[in-house]
Structures are given as C-alpha cells and as structure tokens.
C-alpha cells in the first residue's frame, strides 16, 4: 500500500497530467491515421522527451504506445485499413460489421475490449511486481546476456518464412552498434578514419531513418486514395455491456496478451493469433469468425491492448527490450541515468509502479476521449497520403537534427531511411536491425563482464537461472529447426502433388535399379509388361 501511495505521489504533478493527456490523445490520433503508426511518432518525439523528467517523457511515449492501438481500430473497422499493423486482425470482424450496418457496435465493442485488455494487464503486473522484484536480482551479467540472446533468437524465429533475412538484418544491427571507438581497448572499429564515424552511429538516428524517414518516402512515392467513411449515429456505450457477455474470451485473450507481451520478440501478433484461434475453437458459432463475429473482435482487440504494459516487464526488470518501441524507450532511461534492470526493481520500485498506474489512468482517459470524440476523429483518416509524407519528413528533421545539431546524423538517417524504404517495398522486417543494435550492445557488455569470472565454458551456465535460460535457448532452436524441417517436407509434398507429370520415369527406374535387377523384380516386371496381343484368327 505504501508503495502505491508513493507511486501516486510521483504522478501527482501537472506536467505528468499534461503528458498523460497529450500521450493518450496524440496516440489515438496517430493510431487513427493509417500510414503513420506509433513507431514513427515515438521516433520523432524521442529527442524532445530527453529534456523532460524521466517519468514525464516515458508517460508521453507510453501513452502513444498504449493508445495508438485504440485509434488504429477506427480505420480498421470503418474503411478496412488497419491504423497500426497490429490492428490487421480487427479488420476481419470489424469491417464486416460495418458492411452490414453496425459500425457503432463494432467501434464500441473494440473500445471496450481494448480497455479491458489494457486494464487487465496493468492490474496483473501491479500484482505481479513483488514477484518480479524477487526474481530480478537473480539475474547477473551471464543471465542478462543469455536473456538478450534468447530475445534476439525469438525475434528472428518469430519472422516465419523470413528467418534467414531477419537473422542477417539482426547481424547488421549488431555490426552497426559495434562501429566507432571501442570502450575497453580504445581502438577504432570500422570508422575508415572518418571523424564523423568515431562516435559511433546513434540508435535514435537509425530508428528515425528506418521508421520515420522510410515511412515518409513510402507515403511520398504512393498515390492518394479516395476514402469514404461511414456516418456514425447514436452512442458508443453498448460495447461494455456486450463485452460482459463474453467474460471467458476476454479473460483468456487478455491473459495471452500479458504472457506473450512479457516474452521478448513475441508481442502482439502471436497474442492475437492465439486468442483468435482459441475464441474460434471454443465458440458456439465458429462459422461467424471473419464475417463480423463479436467474439473475434473481442479476442483481437483485448489481446493486442494487453501487450504494451506486459512488454515493459523485460525492459524494466532486466533492461532488455522485447520489440522496437520498448527499445526506443530504453534510450530515454539511459539519457536520464536511470538504468533499467534488476537494480531498478530494488531501488526504484515506486517509479516502476508509478509507470503502471500511469498506464492504468491512460486507459481510462483514452476510453473517455474515444466515447466523446469518435465522430470528429473519423475525419483524420481522410488526410491525403502524400501530404502525410510531407508532415513526417518535416517532423523527422526535428527528431534527427535536435539530437546533436549534426548534418552527418541527418545524412546517416537519410541513408537508413532509403534502406528502410527498400525493406518496406520488399516486405522485409525492420525490427531485427533495431533489436540487433540494442541487444547486441547489451550482449557485448554483459558477455565481457560475465566471462571475466568464468574458467571453463560450462561455468557460464552453472547458476540455476542461467541454466534454465540456456535450456530455453536450446529448446527454441530445436523447435525452430523442426519447424523448418516440417515446412521443407510439406513443400516437397506440395511440389510433388502439383506436378503435372507424376514423376520422372528415368529417375524412378534409377532409384529402383537394385530391385529391378533381382529375380523377383524381373518376375514382377514381366507380369506388368504388355502381354502379346491375343490372336483373333480363328483357325
């Protein structure tokens, strides 16, 4: 109780209240505009938050992160275009509801489910915080190294069908973070004797390039679309009542969101997929899924909104971000000399709880804002794509230039923007680069520290948590290799099935040559040979 009171004391400031309001309203607006998304907004705002108190800066960023998914449901339901990537599943059942004349019901249900997911996860984590505080000190250098390694492996294997290129891009992230002056032996790495490279490449410059500038280029090179929105009539309060009729789906989906959010590299998509599959399998009307099912909408929206609070767990407890947005937030901690990790849970537990309470308040604010302002908010989806591109390009300048007032940083960011544009055109993942940079740096520092006290390689995993993490890494790798082998077998079967010829006859004979040359083979062959035509002559 004392902990909660001291956390509330941290939040009782006008600037925190303002940050909460700005974060929640801004997040909803950004989420509602297809093509912008929270990553772009957070990347742009990141340098601006460096001059704020850590709690104020983090509240703004958390606000955008947590509330953008609420806003993203609006275009997903009304125009079948997800506002943020994680709202893609919302279109499956949200848009068919709009098509049959129930946009108000769909929006109301999406808001209510999102609110439930958000509040459920925050409450879970506040209750879970004492356990985390007890577990976190068990993580030393070796355990944090192994957890970071696990995180990077999970991020790579999560990109099914693109694992190889995701791994290569994570390698690129690890390489980028190693550029510049190496801090132990003070030697230059890959600077090519250029002074502007000796300080290394800043994470924020890369983030702004890959997320914000690349998105600006995507928008500027695309065509404007004509968007027709549906008129909304009546109130939006019925969703809470309808949600109460599906407590099982909502509860299980929120739990999936919390669990998946806590595992680095997994996140919203897996949580949504698992919740949606569960809801469909246990539903009395599974045939409605994908055609405007209220349970499907609840599963998708509850799961994705339960993730942001849970995603803060590995970041706060171990200092390991699980995805790009929390990786960006890590830099805010470092700028203010607040080092997330086991120490934070022991020394600044009130700060951690304050962040969770801020998220709780944020969910309430967002729900009130949406219930009041959805109708005017719908208009933001009409902003033309290319004009949005101009806005993002202009705002990206503030983000990059205000960092060090360096034109070189802007040039590097523009280069990464172009690279990100190519990756987006090819539908390749960007997140592994960012996590490679962040986790690569953590792994470098922690491995060096961990190896100092290790005599044989097995000593590295002689502590229980390190051993468990090592076993999990092995299990994940084996499971992935099995998946690859099964996929390969399935592909071979599919290729064989789709062949117009059943098989190559020569190859078939060659494979069976040893059998065909035996006596038994000769007998069987003789039996199948066309028999001499029976004589039709009648003697």
């Amino acid at each position, binding site marked *: 109780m004392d902990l909660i009171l001291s956390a509330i004391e941290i939040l009782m400031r006008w600037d925190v209240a303002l940050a909460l309001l700005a974060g929640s309203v801004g997040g909803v607006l950004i989420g509602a505009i297809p093509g912008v998304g929270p990553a772009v907004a957070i990347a742009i705002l990141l340098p*601006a938050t460096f*001059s704020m108190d850590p709690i104020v800066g983090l509240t703004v960023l958390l606000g955008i992160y947590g509330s953008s998914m609420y806003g993203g449901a609006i275009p997903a339901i009304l125009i079948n275009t997800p506002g943020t990537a994680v709202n893609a599943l919302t279109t499956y059942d949200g848009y068919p509801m709009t098509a049959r004349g129930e946009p108000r019901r769909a929006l109301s249900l999406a808001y209510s489910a999102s609110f439930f997911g958000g509040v459920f996860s925050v409450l879970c984590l506040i209750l879970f915080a004492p356990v985390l505080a007890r577990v976190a000190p068990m993580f030393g250098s070796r355990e944090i190294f192994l957890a970071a390694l696990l995180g990077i492996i999970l991020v790579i294997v999560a990109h099914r*069908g*693109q694992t*190889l*290129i995701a*791994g*290569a891009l*994570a*390698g*690129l*992230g*690890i*390489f*980028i973070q*190693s*550029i510049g002056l*190496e801090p*132990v*032996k003070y*030697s230059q*790495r*890959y600077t*090519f004797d250029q002074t502007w490279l000796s300080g290394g490449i800043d994470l924020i410059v890369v983030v702004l390039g890959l997320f914000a500038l690349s998105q600006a*280029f995507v928008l*500027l*090179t695309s065509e404007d679309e004509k968007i027709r929105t549906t008129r909304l009539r009546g109130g939006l309060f019925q969703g809470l009542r309808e949600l109460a009729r599906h407590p099982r789906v909502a509860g299980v989906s929120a739990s999936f969101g919390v669990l998946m959010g806590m595992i680095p590299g997994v996140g919203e998509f897996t949580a949504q997929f698992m919740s949606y599959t569960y809801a469909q399998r246990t539903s009395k009307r599974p045939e409605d899924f994908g055609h405007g099912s209220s349970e499907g909408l609840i599963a998708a929206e509850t799961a994705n909104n339960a993730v942001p609070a849970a995603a803060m767990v590995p970041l706060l407890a171990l200092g390991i971000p699980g995805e790009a947005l929390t990786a960006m937030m890590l830099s805010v901690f470092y700028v203010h000399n607040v080092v997330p990790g086991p120490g934070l849970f022991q020394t600044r537990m009130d700060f951690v709880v304050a962040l969770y309470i801020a998220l709780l308040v944020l969910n309430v604010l967002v729900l009130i804002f949406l219930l009041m302002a959805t109708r005017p908010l719908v208009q933001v989806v009409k902003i033309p794509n*290319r*004009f949005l*591109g*101009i*806005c993002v*390009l*202009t*705002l*990206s*300048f*503030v983000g990059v*230039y*205000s960092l060090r*007032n360096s*034109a070189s940083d*802007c*040039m590097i960011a*523009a280069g990464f*923007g*172009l690279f990100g*544009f*190519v990756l987006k*055109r*090819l*539908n*390749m993942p960007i997140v592994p680069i960012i996590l*490679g940079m962040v986790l*690569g740096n953590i792994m470098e520092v922690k491995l*060096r520290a*961990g190896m100092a006290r290790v005599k044989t390689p097995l000593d590295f995993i002689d502590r229980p948590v390190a051993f468990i993490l090592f076993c999990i890494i092995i299990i994940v790798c084996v499971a992935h290799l099995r998946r690859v082998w099964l996929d390969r077998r399935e*592909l071979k079967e599919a*290729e064989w099935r*789709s062949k117009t010829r059943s098989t190559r006859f020569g190859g078939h004979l060659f494979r069976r040559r040893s059998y065909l040359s035996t006596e038994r083979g000769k007998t069987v062959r003789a039996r199948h040979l066309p028999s001499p035509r029976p004589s039709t002559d009648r003697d």
Partner: protein
Amino acid sequence: MTTERERRFTGPRRGQLAFALGFLAISLLLLACIRDQTVWAAKTGLAAQPRFWPAIGLGAMVALGGLHLYRLPWRRFTRFDGAEMRRWAAALEYVLWFMAYVVAVPYVGYLPVTMIFVPLLAWRMGYRSGRMLAISVGFAVAVVLVFKMALSVRIPGAVLYEYLPDALRGFFILNL
C-alpha cells in the same frame, strides 16, 4: 507458371534478387576489411576482443544473407526488377529535399526554412490549391512553435538572425 516455392515466398518477387545480391556483396566487402578496421588485442580473452562483435555481426550477415540468396526461388533478373530499382532511385529525390532542408536551416533559420520547405514540397506533390498551401504554411508554423518554442528542442539560431535588430535577435535565436 508460378511454382510452389515461389508461391510460398513471403513478399513480392520484384527486387528480391537485386537486394539479396547487393546485401551479400556489401557484407562480404565489410568482412574483407575486418583485419584493417579492427584490432586483435594481445593477452585478451575472445569475448573481450575488439574484433569479436563486428565478426559476429558480419559473420551472421554473410552466412544468413548468403543462405537467403541461395534459397531465393528466382535466379534471373526480369524487367520488374529493373522497374523496382528505378522506384528505389525515385525516393532519392526526397532524400535530396530532406538534405536541402537540413543544410538551409543553420543559415536561414528554422522558421523561415520550414515555412518555405513545406509549401514548396506540397506544391511539388501536386497540392496546388490555396487551401492546401495555407494548411501547409499553418503546419510549418505549428511545428516550429510546438517543438522550438514549447518543447525547447535544441535547434540553434541561424546565421541570418545575426543581422536582425538587437531586440528581435535574442527572441528569434531562442524561439524560432
């Protein structure tokens, strides 16, 4: 006809081969420079070697990038690859716009350059109505006021501001 392997590939066909080849070539080039660009410290463990982490990163890029190229279902360039590369090159125009904006700000000032840059780019993108140009000027002013005046982000005053009268100079350098 599309093969099963092509159908199961995640992402479009256009540009994949060019990207995979380019990525592998650059990775190999960087790996070839590793002896010149990093040092191997004497009497130091492997994990603490300055060369260790660049080698891990570049090793992953070469090995996995190479495997990605090997597993690509396409082995030949088509005209669609050429068109895709032209599309990548088309984005260079906006890189130049951005860099021109970056270079101009320290000389002319954040507010004046933004007020010229946004409507000019809007004009280039085909928004030529008075309403859209007015919106772009309004957006430019709002960005400067919010970020430089309200949030006090660090964007230095311009060389041009030095020629302003004393009373205005300080205000412009600090806020605009």
